[in-house]
């Protein structure tokens, strides 16, 4: 039991941190531009594929730097030549633009790299066992992922709280109009934030690619969960996104470890009363729990756990 708890906590925190790497960028973009970027997970996927392509040519470590930058450039271009044009039509067309973009990116990825998973591996220098606990091994690469994610979190905190750029961004979160009136070039800030957010997603993709499987459906698998995270945490709240990422990561991981069903609680007759529901175990519905949480939170507190804005 202790074994399961330890490893579920580790895995949950790791999954939560990967979620946060994406959620932070998405939250920043949303806060400043009011756009919920449906294609955000697609940038994560692009990061994984770029990482794969670069690391098989010049190695993993260069890929770790270059791939996120490339993804950031793609993101900035999308903002400059796509979103900015749509911006004047309002938020719904903006959202729909990113919706279509997610579609196109997935198709293009399928065309270039095929529909099957690509052979994106953990670099040999990190391919060893970090530690062994209760006879279960934990790969070093996952510790590395955790370190990168925490590093990014710290860097983000520093940038946002200690630098001028961070102050402007923070100001834009709450008072976008005032920031514009102070003479800052808001369109360029938008482009930079969109690019930076995409780059963060790309970084997450580069390091998550070898750990999970790099395949064309990876964006679609993660995308909806990501929305859950930022909505549950509270739209526009970075702290909320952090808390919600960890919460969802842990909840999902621990739910898998639980075997109970209504039939266990109420006895075998539960199957008669609840039909199929009686025999469903908690583990079975683990991946649905986030959506439950989402609907529940929005009904009780539409601003999310830590949010202050509604739209």
């Amino acid at each position, binding site marked *: 039991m202790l074994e399961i708890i330890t*490893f579920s906590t580790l895995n949950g925190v790791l999954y939560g941190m990967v979620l946060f790497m994406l959620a932070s960028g998405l939250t920043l973009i949303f806060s400043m531009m009011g756009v919920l970027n449906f294609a955000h997970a697609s940038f994560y996927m692009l990061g994984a594929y770029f990482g794969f392509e670069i690391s098989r040519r010049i190695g993993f470590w260069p890929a770790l730097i270059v791939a996120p930058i490339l993804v950031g450039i793609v993101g900035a271009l999308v903002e400059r030549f796509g979103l900015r044009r749509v911006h004047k039509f309002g938020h719904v067309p903006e959202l729909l633009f990113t919706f279509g973009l997610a579609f196109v990116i997935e198709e293009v990825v399928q065309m270039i790299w095929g529909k099957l*998973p690509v052979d994106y591996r953990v670099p040999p220098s990190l391919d060893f066992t970090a530690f062994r606990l209760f006879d*279960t091994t934990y790969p070093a690469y996952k510790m590395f992922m955790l370190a990168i994610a925490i590093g990014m979190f710290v860097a983000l905190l520093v940038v946002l709280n200690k630098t001028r750029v961070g102050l402007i961004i923070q100001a834009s979160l709450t008072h976008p109009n005032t920031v514009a009136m102070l003479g800052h070039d808001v369109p360029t800030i938008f482009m930079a934030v969109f690019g930076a957010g995409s780059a963060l997603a790309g970084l997450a993709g580069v390091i998550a690619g070898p750990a*999970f499987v790099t395949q064309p*459906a990876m964006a679609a698998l993660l995308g909806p969960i990501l929305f859950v995270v930022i909505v549950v945490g509270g739209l526009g709240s970075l702290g909320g996104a952090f808390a919600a990422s960890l919460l969802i990561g842990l909840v999902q991981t621990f739910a898998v470890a639980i075997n109970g069903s209504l039939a266990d609680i109420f006895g075998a007759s539960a199957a008669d009363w609840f039909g199929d529901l009686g025999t469903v175990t908690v*583990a079975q519905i683990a991946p*649905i729990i986030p959506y439950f949480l989402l609907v529940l939170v929005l009904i009780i507190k539409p601003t999310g756990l830590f949010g202050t804005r509604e739209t």
Partner: protein
Amino acid sequence: MRRALASSFIALSVAMGSAYAADTIKIAYIDPLSGGGASVGEVGLKHFQWLAEQINASGGVIGKKLEILGLDNKTNPQESLVQAQKAIDQGAHFLTQGNGSSVGAALTDFAVKNNDRNPDKQVLYLNYAAVDPVLTNDKCNFWHFRWDANSDIKMQALTNYMKDKPNIKKVYLINQDYSFGESVRTEARKMLKAKRPDVQIVGDEKHPLLKITDFAPYVAKIKASGADTVITGNWGQDIALLLKAAADAGLQVDWYTYYAGGAGGPTAIKQSNIPDRVFAIVEGVPNDEPAETQKIEQEFRTKYGTTFWYPRVYNEVYMLAQAIKDANSDEPKAVAAKLEGMKFKTFMGGEGYMRKDDHQFFQDMYIANLGPLPAGAKFDEEGTGWGWKTQGVVKAKDTELPTTCKMDRPS
């Protein structure tokens, strides 16, 4: 494929008015040719096209050429019905499909209704891979024939092999949470209990279909259960990710699978570096094929760069050709009558037969594991250098299971 599509387009326009359709025998291949399922669907299509070419090169069947129409169903049952309608409009008498029992159920139902409502436009549904047992049990009908062993038959063969393995003591079941996974786990429980009452089932997991990105929590549970063997019906990314997570956690168990050989499977096994521990239940093992079949395997691999995945498609196409010859007609009813009960020397050389009671094909089944190949073996998988090695054979007779089918034959 483009050529096939182009020609099907021409056929579509021509079929509207003329009897041009009668010149070829058309088999409509209804499977995903776009989207995520396409990687599998395209390979299947190539099998059919290649076999049709072989038959046409030797003069065709009853003086006509075989023609394969590739129709994209996007793995959607409702879309499949539209595509089946297209096929009929183009003069196809035979539909073939394999990916997804949901589509299989829809098509078998479609065939019955269509043949009842439009007696002049009847079709046969030739199923090469939809394995839900119900198709040859409660939902069986005269117009459906299945060449793949259904999932119960596969479990029967698998457990027949497992029962003689004394090192199997604790078994963990992990399956996708839908009808196929459900039938795998219930049959596994039932058959293991009957054949090996001493084996302990230490876990029985169902997880959502194609939704899990990290199987680490599941692997932690398997590990904690102390299992030495895992049985899974998982396919696609669900098997690849599962094996990967298991390798990360250093889980040392034997894997008994249905679809570890599917696209991307061997690559994942090689990546996870677990040689000889992943077993699959299959109807053919490339390196143990008879010489004349290995020639086919070699030619196919050279041309398309992939394994000849579907020995059953070979069985299907050649049996269909034989039935058409025997009936001297490509009318569905006459062909179906000849297919029933037909005996056939299969791709692997053993004898197979299409059971008349339920239109289920029976053949020798093989249990093989994936690992480094012995010297002299010709065929590896997906360029990994690893290949399948036969560990056991279950004779066709021993895979037979009773059926609940009550076949309604047209008079």
